[in-house]
């Protein structure tokens, strides 16, 4: 499973965890699946970010936190494609 993180050191990273490792709460939104793995984000965070499109990519450099790709020399990264935001306000 993936959880989009926020704040502090690894804040913008999608954290990759074993399925079920982090209990999903009522305040979380399921945004989609990546290779069968669910991708969640906190609802408040998602709305504050303007409900953007996310593209999950892999980039050189070790992951820095609890994410499962660990220190393999690459880390997952959340990108937002260029283009008009879907924000209404």
């Amino acid at each position, binding site marked *: 499973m993936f*959880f*989009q*993180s*926020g*704040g*502090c*050191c*690894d*804040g*913008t*990273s999608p*954290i990759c*965890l074993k399925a079920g*490792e*982090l*209990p999903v709460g009522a305040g979380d939104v399921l945004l989609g699946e990546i290779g069968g793995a669910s991708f969640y984000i*906190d609802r*408040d*965070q998602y709305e*504050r*970010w*303007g409900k*953007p499109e996310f593209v999950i990519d892999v*980039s*050189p*450099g*070790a*992951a*820095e*936190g*609890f*994410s*499962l*790709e*660990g*220190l393999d020399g690459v*880390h997952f*990264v959340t*990108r*937002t494609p*260029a*283009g008009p*935001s879907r*924000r209404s*306000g």
Partner: protein
Amino acid sequence: MATVESTTYDAPGEAGSPVELEPRYENFIGGRWIPPTTGEYRENLTPSTGEPFCEIAHSGDQDIELALDAAHAAKDEWGARSPAERAAVLNAVADAIDDNLEMLAVAESYENGKPVRETMAADIPLSADHFRYFAGAIRSEEGRISEIDDNTYAYHFQEPLGVVGQIIPFNFPLLMAAWKIAPALAAGNCTVIKPASPTPWSILKLMEVIGDLVPPGVINVVNGPGAEIGKALASNKRIAKIGFTGETVTGRLIMSYAAQNLIPSTTELGGKSPNIFFEDVMAADDAFLDKAVEGLVLYAFNKGEVCTCPSRALIHESIYDEFMARCLDRIASIKQGNPLDRDTMLGAQVSTAQLEKIEGYVAIGINEGAEVLIGGHRTPMKGALAGGYYFQPTVLKGHNKMRVFQEEIFGPVLAVTTFRNEAEALEIANDTMYGLGAGVWTRDGSRAFRMGRAIKAGRVWTNCYHQYPAHAAFGGYKSSGVGRENHRMMLEHYSQTKCLLVSYDPNPMGFF
């Protein structure tokens, strides 16, 4: 110094450096250097050049167990030491840090990429003072007595938890270690620490300095991947508490592990701190105005890698043009360069991943319509620094609904906007999921107090910013975490209350 004229420290390991460097570093467990059970090591990079400079243990679950063995073996003796004896150890640690100020400052700068003038003036002296503060705090702790009636008394004692786990971030590797270790030890606990993966080394230099001053097993440091040993520590049945500083998802994960084991946790998570400048800051062209300008530019302190980075500047619309012009002049004069140069004001971001993230956020800001007032790009460097992770001090002008105003960028990127009146300033300040820090700048004391009380954040700097003295509580409102570090109240988070309920009445209760 390489030469008398040079303002740049030689890199650790070079002949003129105050820092000795080994090719490889093991874990510090039970007062000794222990190779990882995995037999594996990984390269550790310096952000200043992007080049590896030593190897660090790449530990596994078994190394956490070894560290916990050592901590449990030490906890009864350490917990039974008198407050005076524990305080003496903490004071000795503080003295050793002071005695090694330059060595630790250079090591920390090289490890993290932060300017050595900051580590010399802030990180290392504050670390020493933090141990000294908790040495004093534990000496002055008192239990409470409740008089239930004239024959019945409740005596309350604070007792150690035992063995605690602590996971620290990369932005202040030594100071955050001090924030975690000092209260834990003062309260009579032993600790197992997992440093952040990008900054595993400087704390080992600290252990070289203080390792002999602390009984074996009281402080244990294990390096390795967060996904493996971070989890092995945080979810371990043999810790009595977990302390964490980092991002929100791992914060939730930590609290979830703590819930599974029914143990307490403290978490210090992110922020998107507003820094508010009222129109009266420009009422005179004086030292206070100069201080306020510096207060805005403090977003570049520690290259913006601070959970309380004042990353949202809210400026009254009537002074925006003139005040911002002064600030942009000051930002343009920031000297960026080799972190080990004592003249450098802005160093290198901690990793290539962070650098890429910052770049991505600037692009998101521009895409959302933010105006780049200064900076906006990686800083091209020459020579050995060309491979380092340098980003220009950047200011984006926009509005608070933009993502660059809502999400913590953790880089030298300021989002600036204007407000019309106090009510709007407050509304914008509180329109965030975080609540760690805030700044208020005004010559009007009543307004400063009103704003300070109304802002939903754990720390409101008033006519100052980025001061972190021990004895001033630090922690988050809202999604910025649970707990208050940097103050004696942290002792309560590292102890448990024992109530002895004592009857001096010779007579039975009369039930049976």
